[in-house]
């Protein structure tokens, strides 16, 4: 299934016609110099940079369209409402969701998961019921379930991962029990780069009548997402990792489930009527959007989706796959480098350790070379524990990265070894 917004661009010919330099020109920040050197931005898993189209859309909104939405009869309010609701349809098409009623705007992936835990979880899960996650989850797909567990007596179970950093699918299936009521799984691991077999996971869960939440924080900017093809019940992602603004994200939920779920936050816009005795709730998706939302963020997210769809996520994926394979081979040549996580299906992310040198020191020396990577536990401490490290260095690639930047990273790693005399 091809999204109506994404041009079909799967042939090798079109891939080779891809020009990262033209793409780079659309990102003002990529012209920055850091410590006297050109910025090499390889921290895309933390947040992506923003193309001019997104920056301009947010500026244009504040300069000429700003008003509150949904309740004004005046011109600007109608303009803002239309801009906001148009993006909802755009997001639905981007995810191939059946209806824009299934698209709820939230602050980001974290808020989306918390929303599901606190509404679906508290309404339909009870003591002894199980939520199944995997051993490679980000803290944002662990802690909300622990909070739910403390409130309701729900039990959190964890499906194992293997030494490559892949989900043990047989172990996952064994972890599905009579009491499993929800599966929550990361699509693309932020710490290891692993792409999980989400379709298979959804099939296994569906066969047992268990809904599945997919954490798409990392995947949405690297893989084409089709929630119908994946077969998931909830899909969550953040705008800022998809070239959009911070503070805006999306929860997709299957309509039948969203209908049954109680509201999350109470306030304006989420009600049908209010008296001091009682209130009734608005329909979908307003029921989950109390208060004035991040309208400018939604507008920016719409511009980001337009931008990435015009480039084509298949083209993005092909370019990044090429870059990741190249980087993986080049980095492995640096003496003392050990890759943490070597999954067969992977995207964007390379986590590694350098013998005898702490990742923070690696990051510090690279910064002096203008190379921005992440060093730390990546909000995935259980993953670090699984691989017996406290932290890793992580390079994460986006559509605008180049082989020259991989070369700068590798030069930087040699410099690190030189500084530390190893």
């Amino acid at each position, binding site marked *: 299934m091809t999204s109506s917004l994404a041009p079909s661009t799967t042939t090798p010919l079109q891939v080779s016609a891809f020009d990262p330099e033209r793409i780079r020109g659309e990102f003002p920040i990529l012209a920055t110099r850091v410590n006297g050197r050109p910025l090499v931005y390889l921290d895309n898993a933390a947040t992506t940079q923003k193309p001019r189209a997104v920056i301009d859309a947010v500026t244009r909104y504040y300069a000429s369209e700003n008003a509150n939405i949904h309740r004004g009869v005046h011109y600007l309010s109608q303009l803002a409402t239309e801009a906001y609701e148009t993006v909802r349809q755009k997001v639905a098409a981007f995810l191939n969701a059946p209806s824009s009623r299934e698209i709820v705007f939230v602050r980001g992936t974290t808020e989306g998961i918390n929303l599901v835990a606190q509404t679906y979880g508290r309404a339909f899960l009870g003591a002894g019921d199980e939520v199944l996650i995997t051993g490679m989850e980000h803290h944002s797909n662990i802690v909300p379930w622990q909070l739910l567990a403390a409130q309701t007596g729900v039990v959190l179970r964890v499906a194992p991962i293997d030494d490559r950093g892949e989900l043990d699918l047989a172990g996952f299936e064994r972890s599905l029990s009579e009491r499993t009521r929800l599966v929550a799984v990361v699509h693309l691991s932020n710490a290891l780069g692993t792409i999980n077999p989400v379709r298979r996971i959804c099939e296994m869960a569906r066969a047992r009548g268990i809904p599945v939440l997919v954490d798409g924080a990392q995947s949405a900017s690297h893989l084409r997402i089709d929630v119908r093809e994946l077969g998931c019940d909830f899909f969550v992602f953040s705008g800022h990792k998809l070239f959009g603004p911070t503070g805006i994200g999306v929860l997709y939920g299957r309509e039948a489930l969203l209908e049954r779920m109680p509201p999350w936050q109470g306030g304006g816009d989420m009600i049908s009527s209010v008296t001091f005795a009682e209130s009734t709730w608005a329909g979908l998706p307003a029921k989950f959007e109390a208060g004035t939302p991040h309208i400018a963020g939604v507008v920016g997210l719409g511009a980001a989706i337009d931008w990435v769809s015009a480039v084509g996520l298949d083209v993005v994926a092909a370019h990044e796959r090429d870059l990741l394979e190249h980087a993986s081979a080049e980095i492995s040549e640096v003496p003392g480098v050990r890759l943490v996580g070597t999954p067969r299906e992977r995207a964007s992310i390379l986590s590694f350790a350098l013998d005898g040198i702490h990742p*923070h020191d690696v990051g510090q020396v690279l910064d*002096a070379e203008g190379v921005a990577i992440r060093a730390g536990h990546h909000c995935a401490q259980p993953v*670090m524990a699984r691989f017996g490290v406290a*932290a890793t260095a992580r390079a994460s690639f986006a559509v605008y990265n180049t082989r020259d930047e991989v070369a700068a990273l590798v030069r930087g790693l040699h410099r690190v070894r030189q500084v530390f005399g190893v």
Partner: protein
Amino acid sequence: MMELSALYQDVILEHNRSPRNFHRMDDADRHAEGRNPLCGDQLTVWLKLNGDRVSDVSFEGSGCAISKASASLMTAAVKGKTRSEIDRLFQRFHDVVTGNSSPETESRRELGKLAVFSGISAFPVRVKCATLSWHALKAALEQGAGAVSTE
């Protein structure tokens, strides 16, 4: 831009490679753990007291070059000192790494070898690395045992 060599001075790199007093101390009077939750750095400081004086001190843990070298140099600096001398030294050290002390002042001279960490003031995110072991030492002196966090 601050040169890297101001941060990673030779003394620091050398203590990172061969940390002093780097071992558990099973017969310690006091110990405390220090954690930097943002980066996962963790170390434990053990000490023996002779009255008000620290007669022996050691540490163990995992962390970056700055936290390891700082802990190593700290153990060498505080051995034989009284609590109030250590408090004063930590205050001086803190002033220097946070940039609240001008060069060539009395406090810098008091620091001796610890002054190699003055370059950290240009790298504010690394201040927590340099002070982690000091916070753990302080906790051990004050509480006897427990854990401290940089957050």
